[in-house]
């Protein structure tokens, strides 16, 4: 019987299904697998141990950029497990008979028996042609399923700011991953082709890159008391213009109309109670904040480009 792993036992894995699977390392069976959940989260899964009843796997939620760093050997496997981006790893005990997950424990790598995870300093090292092929496969996996469940006409309608923020908040667990994935694709010079009825690729990309910024906005908005600000509307198109730098924040703010809440207003006009000057001030502050996220977006792109370049450089150095 395998040793119990301390941590929080949860009813099951945090995904509905895994939509992508690629065996990266095989030794008398799959040992290292890259998987992607239906909500876009990537997982790198290490085979850990087995007995007659269960096979144990350690799942690390991972962003694309971190994944590249681990696969190319820049980051040792144990370091990645010991400092997970989301703060946890999952230990899954799987039945060999049915492939069903018997136990799921949310834990940290240091709680896992140390002989059951990679040794200190052990690195993966995808090299040369293998790296090129794998990179292509990763890109295919990322583009395979639109990470956003948006409909095309979403971009055409106005929605409450709060809902707009919630739209992003629903993606928080994978937000940084998606942001980096899409920015990573751009850094590679790959056009993001998202199938189905999703919004245009450039819209997705812009959204994704400012998601970390929007988390900050979400926190600010959620800290506000429940006031009429909750009814404020900004068109998604305007928000995107802001994000993309097509329109500056002050210009948008100057167009915000103060109207009677009961009045029938055009779709793009936000609704504020005339007396709600505080809310107005907050809105200005928040929109000014968005401007700074545009700058953050540029920094993210630079960072992503640098990481891809470093990964490529590492592989080419190893090949020579």
């Amino acid at each position, binding site marked *: 019987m395998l040793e119990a792993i301390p941590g929080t036992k949860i009813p099951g894995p945090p995904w509905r299904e895994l939509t992508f699977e690629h*065996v990266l390392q*095989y030794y008398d069976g799959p040992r290292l697998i890259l998987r992607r959940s239906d909500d876009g989260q990537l997982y790198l899964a*290490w085979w850990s141990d087995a007995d007659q009843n269960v096979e144990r796997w350690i799942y690390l939620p991972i962003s694309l950029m971190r994944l590249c760093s681990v696969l190319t050997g820049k980051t040792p496997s144990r370091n990645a497990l010991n400092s997970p981006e989301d703060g946890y790893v999952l230990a899954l005990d799987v039945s*060999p008979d049915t492939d069903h997950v018997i136990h799921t424990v949310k834990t940290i790598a240091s709680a896992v028996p140390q*002989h059951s995870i990679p040794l200190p300093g052990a690195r993966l090292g995808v090299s040369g042609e293998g790296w090129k092929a794998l990179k292509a496969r990763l890109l295919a996996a990322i583009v395979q399923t639109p990470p956003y469940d948006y409909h095309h006409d979403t971009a055409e309608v106005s929605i409450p700011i709060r809902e707009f923020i919630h739209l992003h908040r629903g993606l928080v667990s994978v937000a940084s991953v998606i942001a980096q994935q899409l920015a990573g694709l751009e850094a590679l010079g790959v056009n993001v082709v998202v199938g189905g009825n999703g919004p245009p690729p450039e819209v997705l990309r812009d959204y994704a890159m400012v998601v970390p910024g929007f988390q900050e906005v979400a926190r600010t908005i959620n800290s506000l008391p429940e006031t009429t600000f909750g009814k404020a509307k900004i068109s998604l198109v305007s928000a995107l213009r802001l994000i993309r730098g097509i329109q500056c924040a002050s210009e948008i703010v100057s167009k915000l109309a103060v109207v009677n809440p009961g009045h029938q207003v055009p779709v793009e006009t936000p609704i504020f109670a005339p007396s709600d000057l505080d809310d107005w001030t907050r809105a200005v502050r928040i929109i000014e904040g968005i401007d700074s996220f545009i700058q953050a977006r540029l920094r993210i792109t630079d960072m992503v480009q640098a990481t891809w370049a470093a990964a490529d450089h590492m592989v080419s150095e190893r090949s020579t």
Partner: protein
Amino acid sequence: MWPTDFPADCPPSGASHPNENHYQIIKNDPPMWDDFVSLYHQNQILAQRRINTGRVNQCETMGLSTYTDIGDAVACFRQFPNLGDKIARLTLDQRAGKVQETPRDVGESHHTWWMPQYFAPTAFARVVAYRWQV
């Protein structure tokens, strides 16, 4: 002669007689029989599950993993300590059956080795590295 439970097309037509050293992760020194049992013969249920999920075919589960580059073997047993803590060098010739290159993203020198019936692998294997050394 192949074991009777091998499917008709196993080993695959692309496999050939070994003509170089191979390296295998094992648990015993000196190597013992149970270091050379394929997944299929070790745990048929697990093998069948992997076949059903499309991760491998039956023939692959009846072969053994080896590396021709000892560096890949070392990297593997450092990555998955529970696989074993020793590396054996296998000096194989045509009596040993057939091998096929089956490279992976991690472990490019990965091979699959199919042993004939009545072959005694322990006579061709010698431990050359322990985990504590590397």
